[in-house]
């Protein structure tokens, strides 16, 4: 067994030192009746690296990888090119196999990286302070709602109908605990987001309004208008972003008055991974809200010689000190995913991020124009970043399956996201990134022409 260094001679010598006749004597506190008498049923004995790799490769090959298809899926997870050096850096053992940096003197690498990451996220979001990351965008969204409850001491949550339905589901699941009242409608398939309808639902009991930007249909709501309305009623505006690359092209939520900005960082550096691990981003515009934030924070300080250094800080908000009074039960962050994000963002820089964003937008405009020419297809959005909605005039779930039979991953059907909603069934979300070629767009368009005919 290649991962276990003890020899039988070592084990005997150690048992002798301990004064135990055999290893079972060390399990004396486990009641006899609870000990397993034989091996785990059905589990084979240990296997070589070659044998395990072969088994896993067989399972891997059953899946259609994004790189092997014309690929147009988004809806909260996006395929972008990740430079090779990102994976190289995160596989360095000193990052990969390190623990949470609770001993700052020997964890400055992780800590400085987190400080840089926090600064990058804060600037991207137009906020004062970002934390050291959360599990993913959907759980960060819930944590923001919970934080708004702590700040405002109110119980009513207004969710935009165009918030990612999974995110809305997570908020509703967790609100069962806190007995928050959730106001949520499904999105209407129209070219512009319904800001007026959303604003009409804000009242004096509202703790927060949650708006996605760009929204689930790819539209770009004017956040300032919603921020003003929320603030007038003493509510916080939470803005959710699931495509951080967009913020290289569009105004930040912070500069439009958002109080808390959360999002999914997966697009930058992390990769699709069938849904996880991903990277929750969390930031606040006003520094006075920092002490109500969930999660870890890295801060700057000095050491005994006056040299600059970094530590995890403000931990009195956290579960290991405040226990049942903590701001959240979250006990981890996505350190390695944050590193991947930070390295990729460093490689891009502002110039690269802006170019990347504009390339995404250019290709998406091209795709929207081409798909609009397919008989039976109409493009819903007037404005979008790299993802837009088309109507197909028939159930998009069936169309997606037919496209998959042809090796094309043609988008996310709204029916998959809203299974109970017939009104949305003919909607298809189409995402385009820099990895999409004009040839891919042509492949999708001509396949749609056949499938819809």
């Amino acid at each position, binding site marked *: 067994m290649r*991962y276990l*260094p*003890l020899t039988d001679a070592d084990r005997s*010598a150690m*048992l002798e*030192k*301990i004064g*135990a006749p055999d*290893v079972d004597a*060390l*399990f004396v506190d*486990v009641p006899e*009746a*609870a000990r397993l008498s034989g*091996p785990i049923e059905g589990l084979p004995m240990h296997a070589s690296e070659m044998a*395990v790799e072969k088994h896993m*490769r067989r*399972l891997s090959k059953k899946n*259609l990888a994004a790189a092997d298809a014309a*690929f147009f899926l988004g809806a909260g*997870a996006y395929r972008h090119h990740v430079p090779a050096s990102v994976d190289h*850096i995160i596989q360095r053992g*000193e990052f990969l196999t390190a*623990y949470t940096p609770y*001993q700052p*003197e*020997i964890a400055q690498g992780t800590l400085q990286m987190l*400080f840089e990451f926090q*600064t990058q996220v804060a600037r991207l979001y137009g906020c004062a*302070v970002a934390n050291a990351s959360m*599990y993913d965008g959907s759980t960060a969204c819930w944590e923001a709602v919970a934080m708004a409850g702590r700040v405002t001491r109110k119980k009513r949550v207004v969710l935009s109908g165009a918030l990612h339905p999974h995110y809305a*589901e997570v908020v509703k699941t967790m609100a069962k605990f806190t007995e928050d009242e959730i106001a949520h409608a499904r999105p209407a398939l129209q070219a512009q987001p319904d800001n007026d309808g959303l604003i009409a639902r804000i009242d004096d009991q509202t703790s927060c309004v949650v708006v996605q930007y760009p929204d689930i249909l790819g539209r770009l709501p004017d956040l300032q208008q919603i921020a003003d309305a929320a603030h007038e009623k003493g509510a916080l505006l939470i803005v959710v972003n699931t495509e951080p690359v967009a913020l290289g092209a569009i*105004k930040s939520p912070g500069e439009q008055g958002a109080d808390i900005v959360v999002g999914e960082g997966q697009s930058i550096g992390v990769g699709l991974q*069938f*849904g996880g*691990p991903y990277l929750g981003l969390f930031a606040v515009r006003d520094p006075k809200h920092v002490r109500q934030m969930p999660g870890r924070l*890295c801060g700057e*300080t000095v050491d005994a010689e006056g*040299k600059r250094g970094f530590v995890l*800080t403000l*931990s009195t908000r956290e*579960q*290991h000190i405040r*226990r*049942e009074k903590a701001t959240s*039960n979250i006990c981890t962050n996505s350190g390695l995913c944050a590193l991947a994000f930070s390295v990729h963002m*460093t*490689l891009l*820089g*502002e*110039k690269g*991020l802006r*170019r990347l964003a504009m*390339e995404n937008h250019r290709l998406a405009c091209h795709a*929207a124009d081409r798909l609009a020419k397919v008989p039976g297809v109409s493009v819903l959005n007037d404005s979008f970043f790299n993802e837009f909605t088309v109507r197909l005039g028939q159930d998009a779930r069936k169309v997606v399956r037919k496209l*998959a039979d042809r090796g094309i991953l043609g988008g996310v059907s709204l029916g*998959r*996201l809203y*299974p109970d909603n017939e009104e949305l069934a003919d909607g298809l979300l189409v995402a385009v990134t*820099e990895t999409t070629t004009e040839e891919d767009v042509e492949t999708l368009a001509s396949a749609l022409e056949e499938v819809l005919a």
Partner: protein
Amino acid sequence: MSAPNQSGWKPGTPVQDHNAMSGPDTVTGNRALMLEEPLLFEIGHVETTGVDLPEPSGAATRLGGMERAAAIGLPGLSEPETVRHYTRLSRQNYAIDLGLFPLGSCTMKHNPRLNEKVARMPGFADVHPLQPVQTVPGALEVINELAHWLIELTGMHGVAMSPKAGAHGELCGILCIRAALEARGDARKVVLVPESAHGTNPATAAFAGYEVEDIPATPEGRVDLEALKARLGPDVAAVMITNPNTCGLFERDMKAISDAVHAAGGFVYCDGANFNAIVGKVRPGDLGVDAMHINLHKTFSTPHGGGGPGSGPVVLSEALSPFGPLPFTARTADGVVHLVEEENAADYGHVQAFGRMTAFHGQMGMFTRALTYILSHGADGLKQVAEDAVLNANYILRSLEDVLDAPFGPSGPCMHEALFSDDGFAEGLSTLDLAKALIDEGYHPMTMYFPLVVHGAMLVEPTETESKAALDQFIMALRSVAERAKAGDETMKTAPHYAPRRRLDETQAARKPVLAWNDANMA
């Protein structure tokens, strides 16, 4: 010209020499291979990029007037500068690849690189969570196969795979318990948590809207069964217990505890953070546990990555299995693995799925690593993992109890972690000083001041992937610093002396938080 790249250290400021590293000051602040690295924001430039992308052609046409005009302030580096920046930073970190990492309750064991290779196979790494299910049968099989082995290894009935970390798994387990209670019209309000529990347990119960009450520990470091029984009643929804517990001991009365809780109509939540001590030896289901999260990063060696990502599947008893979250996978009689996301959950035995805890399906990248680990070890290897982990911990306990106080040493063997206290240290020297002195010996310190039931606690977990030679050297080092602490060696108060940074001022960091570069100090 002043060098821009000296972290906090200014050219011409002598580097004070508090230690034996004598020699002239350097103008760079570097010391041979120990290199100072400036912040990205001090060396990068907004016009620099390490990625070749086309110059935008023409104006953005469909951004609806939302164009970002103002500067963002994101400096970039070229690829060689980027690789150098992060490689230099990496050298300021301790890691399991560098040496023994004796963190009790955190389980830092070797991370096999096969796991990394597998997780990067395109069929796992490069698939979208919402791809048509017909294009991802292998990914669903991975989830289902891992789920199957987690159920078998724990002797449970079902498993919820989507929780993103251990504490998220705790929330999931408590939600299942709450759903099961609601299904029988039972509105219980209290969760009992022993003193020795992880801080996440009371935080989770409180976050879930329950009142939290402590249950004391016996002088032997175990749950006080009589006190627990006395508190049970119709208002108690659940007991959250850690087994093996955070004193490094097996809860001998676990079955009696479970029976008492069940008799009172409540459920037993077990914090599975220490499952690595008993995997392949004991099945929690046989002890009456109703829900237990499994930290894949601990028991099944997915890398900690400097704080995460984690992964926290929750195994469930027959009573709780119908109440798990969406989505989940299920293999039907036809041998096909289905992904159940929404409406038809009841067809698969989920009478009352309580909705989603996260977008998508959980930590797939961790599932592939954990399954690879399980198949590599097999039934014989996993049993050996628990035995060697416990053997190594007891070897440390018995090798050091003559020099370090072991409060529960006399009560018998420990499990996978050995607990010591600061009893016998000279006046003015603390567990913290010992830990920082251990850094100078080339080790990451053990878990300190936890569990809270022991004064100045030191919880040492060597894990099964340490050799006897590695343990012997660690024991020698710990013995040496323990002797210095007892003798009152004042130099320990200023340790570490040889780390990339001397002792850091955590009070200043908290009092005047600086949480972003160039940010004005906050009040």
